[in-house]
């Protein structure tokens, strides 16, 4: 029997340069002789998107480029969030190259866009396949409004119907301050666009969610909420409750700094079960309104009656969670034919924002056993299968996924 040559592969590259063309040239060099069929690109948001796309096209010619802005990129050869990073995954061969689905109408409604995308993916997929969602997180700049990942994901899952997929994903940002976000698709720079990468049926994923928040209050009932704007907790003005906890007054500022400090967490399952980070879905605070006494969350998926707790970031817990989660993943992928490690990391977890003494991305890189290519990016929101079931958007998490090939 003659040996078979496996020509299908995924390779990754990373560079950081003020000159995006130079960064792409460096990445091309790292990819070696690979002749990719698809490029997944995460581009630091200080680069001009059109210049970045032109640079990509100059380097890769007619090869389709998808992806978009990222608050930073992560790879074994470097990571950062200066805004000048370029992180790439290059897919070669039909056995590993995902099919790209898209919808350009997020502005017309995230649920509907998600549903259309889900229906399209359902048609082309089989149960157990891996799908990755990416979209530009920032819908409007003033006042800041996000494309809610909860609505998008709900629509997507609805569109999938009975199809059981392993769905991961992330929101694309230009920077940690959520200044903007954009998507590459169809040889263009796009806004209000969601893309889904559907991996070939022979590929499976093992995913862990890395946490880092701890409850610091007793349970509070949401007693008044409009969309993502929480007006009352336990019948009191929501902002007053949070201010009392923090011992600060938001005053006349936008309150955006709250997103650095606290989240609201909903505990799943038995509310009186011992603390387990995996039981919490956290929602970051987008802004505060001193006049309305409200806080606006990243997602509008809480309702009146939702029992929440004020959650504190805990840098130590975050690093412990990384060690625990990566250790579990190492066990899950042991002996597997690993193709690609993908890390979708909440930008708030970067030490420049969290103040953690150790970069948790560095800890992920150091503790992950897999020697397969790795690429990651700093995101606005993370999507992953929650407790092994259906996927939902998460805040302040890191989603680490290893793609493996069926043997």
């Amino acid at each position, binding site marked *: 029997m003659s040996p078979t040559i496996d020509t299908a592969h995924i390779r990754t590259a990373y560079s950081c340069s*003020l000159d995006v063309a130079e960064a792409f040239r460096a990445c091309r060099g790292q990819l070696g002789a690979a002749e990719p069929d698809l490029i997944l690109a995460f581009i630091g948001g*200080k680069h001009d998107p059109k210049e970045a796309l032109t640079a990509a096209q100059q380097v890769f010619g007619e090869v389709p480029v998808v992806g978009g802005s990222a608050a930073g990129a992560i790879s074994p050869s470097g990571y*950062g969030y*200066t*805004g*000048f990073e370029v992180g790439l995954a290059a897919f070669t061969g039909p056995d590993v190259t995902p099919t790209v689905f898209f919808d350009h109408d997020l502005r017309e409604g995230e649920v509907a866009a998600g549903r259309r995308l889900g229906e399209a993916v359902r048609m082309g997929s089989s149960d157990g396949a891996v799908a990755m969602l990416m979209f530009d997180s920032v819908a409007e700049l003033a006042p800041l409004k996000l494309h809610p990942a909860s609505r998008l994901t709900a629509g997507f899952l609805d569109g999938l119907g009975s199809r059981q997929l392993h769905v991961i994903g992330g929101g694309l940002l230009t*920077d*940690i*301050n959520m*200044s903007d976000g954009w998507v590459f698709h169809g040889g263009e720079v796009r806004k209000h666009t969601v893309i889904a990468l559907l991996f070939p049926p022979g590929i499976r994923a093992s995913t862990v969610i890395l946490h880092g928040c*701890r*409850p*610091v*209050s*007793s349970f509070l009932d949401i007693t008044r909420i409009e969309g993502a704007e929480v007006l009352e907790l336990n019948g009191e003005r929501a902002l007053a409750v949070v201010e*009392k*906890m*923090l*011992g600060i007054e938001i005053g*006349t*500022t*936008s309150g*955006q*700094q709250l997103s*650095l*400090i*606290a989240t609201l967490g909903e505990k799943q399952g038995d509310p009186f079960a011992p603390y387990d980070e995996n039981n919490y879905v956290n929602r970051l605070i987008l802004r505060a309104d001193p006049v309305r006494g409200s806080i606006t969350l990243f997602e509008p998926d809480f309702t009146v009656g939702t029992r929440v707790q*004020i959650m*504190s*970031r*805990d*840098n130590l817990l975050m690093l412990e969670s990384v060690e625990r989660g990566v250790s579990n993943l190492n066990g899950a992928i042991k002996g597997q034919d690993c193709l690609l490690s993908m890390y979708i990391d909440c930008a708030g977890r970067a*030490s*420049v*924002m*969290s*103040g*953690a*003494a150790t970069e948790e991305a560095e800890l992920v890189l150091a503790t992950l056993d897999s020697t397969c290519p790795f690429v990651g990016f700093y995101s606005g929101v993370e999507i992953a299968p929650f407790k092994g079931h259906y996927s939902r958007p998460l805040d302040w998490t890191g989603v680490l996924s290893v793609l493996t090939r069926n043997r």
Partner: protein
Amino acid sequence: MTSEPISREQLERELAFYRTEYNEVGARLLRLQEEQSRTAREARRSRTVARLIREAYRIADQQMPAELLGEPLLAVIADTSVCDRAVFLREEIGRPGNFIIEQAIGASVGATVCLNPVPAFLYTTSVQSARPEASALAALIGVPFILWAYEPISQRALLLGNSTESNIHRPFEASDQELVDGALAVYIDVLLKKRAEAALHQAKTAAEEASDARAAFLAALSHELTTPLNAIIGFSELLLSGNEHGEAKRVDFLRQILDAGRGLHAMIKDILDFSSFSNKVPLLRLDWTPISTLLRAAVRACSTGSHAKGITVDVLPLSPDFQVYLDYDKFRQIMSNLLGNAIKFTGSGGRICLSSEMTAECGVSLVVKDTGIGIETQDIPRVTEPFVQVGGQHGSKLGAGLGLPIAKQLTEAHGGQLLVASVFGEGTTVTVLLPRGSARRS
């Protein structure tokens, strides 16, 4: 013994107690976490200058021109301070208060702003009304929240900007002056250091070139002096040897000695002139002279040489009232050298043409054009260097190579320029341009 059942009231009190305590402890934990995070963020910010210094040393070790070092330093500033915009500006020379962006992250290089007065330090927040200078700077980089530092001696400034007030850390505040002043100082220091290094390198290169030129000069000088001296000594020894040479031979030897002596004399005069003009600008006795007189005299002076080679020398018609303001003797020397060279490098039966015209604003253009051997393109820049004779074996036998350098020195002493153009194998054109005001109609 059985314990007393706990009453509902007691349980509710206990629950309220634990809830309050839990909330209190949780709030303290939250504040401690935030305090730790804030301290870490401020520490990172305060490391900006230290990181800049490290980066500056790294850059200083590279062969990076001074003009390019701003961008990597801005990248460090933008990374550690996590700002959206960062630019270095330079105050334009002779235009106080006018600044131009020299290096930028997130803004346009070359954009300008006018400030009056120029603040040494400035920042904006949402709770204070912006000064007009702050509004101008915010407009310059397209974000509302700015942080500015200006150093008046070097006339350079650093401007940082954010689109949101909170950014990651907090709004800009007065204590940030230390950061921007420090960052600007590091940039100016490394900029001046790189410039000093570049000037030193340039001076070293010039000194090495001068040393090489001096060595080449001495070598060429020795060679040029030795050749006629050998002739003089050789023929003199022949005459003194006591051998019978016959009258014709004796006269020939004496003529050879005389020619070599004259050549030597001319060369030494050239060398003295060249050396003299190199050390100081020749003193000129300027006066108005009809150009026709000057050119005809020059042609007459070299007519022996041109006749001997059968070369035609044409002087294009000149208006008799066209006068030039120059030192007659020095300019005769220029013409003599140019015509001498033209005759030297033009074959028998060739042609030399002299022309002159008044240029814009009463300047003068004087052209000597020959149909000689010409000069190869790559050699043209070298022909005005001393002792350089290009053209291989033709040149090596035809003089010391000081004619054009002396003509160039004398032309420049008149405030003019000497330009050489040539096509190899077709001929050479030398143009002497005298500055405006050098010509008139009498």
